[in-house]
């Protein structure tokens, strides 16, 4: 019977290919769009992921997400350092400014000011240069995408200069950082330098980064810091998720992607369902004959489900390969870095496709079950 189901399915090439196309199309659209969405949302927390040395982020109690902060005071920093169980605590400046290349091209940038002594918060992957040189005055490290923007088509070298808010700064290192949400260049410098670059009031501490002493759980330390200072204290992971959720709730991004995914779902289900149903209707007499000859309803349902699953599996395979090929092709594109297809997305899409083909075949199954085998004798 499996042989018959397979022959029936592939016997009508046009419908067979139409079914596969419909499934492949919705698989591609869903997995691709969800991957881009996840990549984009992940980018909102890029600067948190970049900082691997510190697990604990302390901020003003009302802070909602990474990009909008109320400055902390030196007093706050001292109080955090005084909390039992804190191994160390350092200030972090995160702000924006504007930089200009010698040829006049300019752009808004993200400026990260790291603790003068320890440089805690520096990305780990250094592409060129030496971050120790940041101890020299008017120096910065720049991420490679920023470098490519200011010096397009030029080899990556150090000691070039940029104008940063009327300061001539020298690049002493080029680093690899995660792409920020807005994909702006990221500059790293010492905390005190950052303050002098932006040239505003003394108080510019965006976050305090801290580390728990050996044997103290991060969650416990967060509780202690909040209890002692009234400030909000989160693990990097928690702040990352709060930031992602902030963007999900407060921007139109999820709705936009959601609409595309729902359309892909509907088109996939309707086109596949319709084609599959037509396919069954055209073969109804044949199914009737099989029923008369003595093939049970259960086996006929099995045949239809098998046809649906074959179409689903092939269509899914094609669609998911297209998505994988897309991300593979753009892997070396720095502007698209961080976008990739997670295994969870592959699994989720597979589940949705399974749902689509089952739904698409449900009507056919119903039609065949209620079919009176006596119809085979009618003209």
């Amino acid at each position: 019977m499996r042989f018959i189901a397979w022959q029936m399915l592939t016997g009508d090439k046009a419908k067979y290919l139409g079914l596969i196309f419909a499934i492949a199309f919705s698989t591609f659209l869903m997995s691709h769009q969800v991957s881009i969405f996840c990549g984009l949302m992940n980018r909102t927390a890029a600067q948190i992921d970049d900082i691997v040395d510190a697990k604990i982020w302390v901020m003003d109690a009302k802070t909602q997400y990474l990009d909008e902060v109320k400055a902390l005071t030196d007093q706050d920093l001292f109080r955090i350092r005084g909390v039992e169980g804190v191994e160390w605590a350092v200030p972090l400046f995160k702000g924006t400014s504007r930089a200009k290349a010698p040829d006049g091209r300019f752009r808004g940038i993200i400026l990260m000011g790291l603790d003068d002594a320890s440089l805690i918060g520096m990305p780990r992957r250094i592409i060129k240069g030496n971050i120790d040189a940041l101890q020299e005055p008017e120096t910065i490290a720049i991420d490679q995408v920023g470098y490519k923007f200011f010096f397009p088509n030029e080899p990556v070298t150090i000691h070039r200069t940029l104008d940063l808010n009327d300061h001539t700064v020298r690049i002493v290192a080029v680093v690899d950082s995660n792409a920020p949400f807005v994909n702006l260049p990221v500059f790293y410098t010492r905390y005190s330098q950052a303050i002098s670059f932006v040239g505003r009031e003394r108080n510019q501490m965006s976050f305090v980064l801290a580390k728990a002493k050996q044997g103290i759980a991060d969650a416990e330390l967060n509780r202690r810091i909040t209890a002692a200072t009234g400030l909000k204290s989160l693990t990097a992971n928690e702040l990352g998720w709060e930031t992602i959720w902030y963007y999900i709730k407060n921007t139109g991004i999820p709705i936009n992607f959601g609409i595309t995914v729902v359309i892909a779902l509907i088109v996939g289900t309707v086109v596949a369902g319709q084609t599959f149903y037509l396919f069954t209707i055209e073969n109804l007499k044949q199914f009737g004959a099989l029923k008369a000859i003595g093939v049970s309803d259960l086996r006929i349902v099995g045949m239809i489900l098998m046809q649906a699953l074959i179409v689903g599996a092939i269509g899914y395979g094609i669609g998911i390969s297209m998505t994988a090929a897309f991300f593979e092709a753009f892997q070396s594109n720095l502007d698209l870095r961080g976008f990739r297809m997670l295994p969870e997305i592959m699994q989720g899409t597979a589940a949705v496709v399974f749902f689509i083909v089952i739904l698409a075949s449900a009507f056919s199954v119903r039609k065949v079950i209620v079919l009176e085998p006596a119809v085979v004798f009618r003209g």
Partner: protein
Amino acid sequence: MNTQAVVCNQVLKSFGAGEDEVKVLRGVDLTVPLGEMTFLVGPSGCGKTTLLSVIAGLLNPTGGDLHVLGTALHQLKSSKAVEFRRENLGFVFQQFNLLPALTAAENAAVPLLAANWPLKKAVEKAKTLLDELGLGSRVNARPNQLSGGQQQRVAFARALIHDPKLIVCDEPTSALDEHTGHYVMELLRKIAVRPERAVLVVTHDNRIYNFADRIAHMNDGLVTHVEQNGGMN
């Protein structure tokens, strides 16, 4: 030893209920003996196809008593009825109802596949049978590459391949021209009629009446009389 393939006793069949009730079979008495070819004839709309469907277990009678090969088919659970049909019945339809995606041999093998025979063995047996039916060179053709008469011969092979005890045919020749109709009936007689098997043919094609061993005449939902016929002898 039971020599009757089918025994109908006051079989009733109506469609619809209440005001709309249509009484199609109004008390049919009929016996179909093994080893013979019985024709069921009568004017259009008299209930031939309905009776055939009831006998084949595709429709349940509304009343009366019916035994097919000694079994009260309509009293079986539906899964048992399916099994009964698969083992004991062969079907031939007016419109052939072959699966367009399968070759002649594969189509003929369907009842064996339904009984879980391995594909290769089933198709082998189908080829042998098709050869007997004069289609040895067309076993790999698809239905749309075959003439009507050839398609009906494939359908015969499908009805015969699992050696059923009762073969039911509804208007097997009405989609065929006279010459072809004659030829396939001759073939059916030769291959299908066996001492342990009954063949029941519904037709209103009087050009083929002389192939019957007996002819049951139906009118308005009743079998009016049965006549013995030569059966070509």
